């Protein structure tokens, strides 16, 4: 039961163009969403997040959009750079039936982004 899905295993873009990575979720209790970037042989590092009370959050070249009705979020990278080549994971968190979070994240399968010079 994959509650967070990234349906594109890979994405290839040209340097300077926009990269759009997509993520869908099924659990309506999720209310906080994050994107992580992972280079080979390193742990994932936090990139950007968004709360369900917002529909957009921007940080430099990175923007995350949230469509709650569609249970869909996307990460836009503009302009894309070769150093952005990595695996990108979407993650989500929410409270359990008792109203507790514990901070655990549910991750998607990841999308391998390759940015060509």
């Amino acid at each position, binding site marked *: 039961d994959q509650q967070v899905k990234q349906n594109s295993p890979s994405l290839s873009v040209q340097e300077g163009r926009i990269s759009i990575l997509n993520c869908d979720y099924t659990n309506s209790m999720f209310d906080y969403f994050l994107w992580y970037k992972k280079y080979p*042989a390193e742990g*994932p590092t936090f990139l950007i997040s968004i709360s369900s009370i917002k529909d957009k959050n921007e940080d430099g070249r990175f923007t995350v959009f949230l469509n709650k009705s569609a249970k869909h979020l996307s990460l836009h990278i503009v302009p894309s750079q070769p150093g952005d080549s990595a695996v990108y*994971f979407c993650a989500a968190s929410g409270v359990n039936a008792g109203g507790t979070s514990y901070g*655990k*994240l*549910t*991750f*998607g*399968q990841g999308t391998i982004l390759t940015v060509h010079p």
Partner: protein
Amino acid sequence: DVKVTQSSRYLVKRTGEKVFLECVQDMDHENMFWYRQDPGLGLRLIYFSYDVKMKEKGDIPEGYSVSREKKERFSLILESASTNQTSMYLCASSFVGRTNEKLFFGSGTQLSVL
């Protein structure tokens, strides 16, 4: 900077061995987590702990146990290693509180069970 340190980058073990993966964080975080990463499956939560001596099962706890005797240290134990436990294991930590649920990850341990 937050530092999460995993004791080994690479481990090779035999089927049936008991395996210990150690993780230490230096930011006084209450929450600690063990995930495994497999191609096409993403990161899956094995166990987590929200306080010393407290532990909760994640999504795939079978074949694993954990220990948290001190706040900064969280150990993952494979009681009897099997080949399907060959994977990248990632430890993470975070503060309590819903205002910031960002996880900080270690560099990972690539475990091969032969």
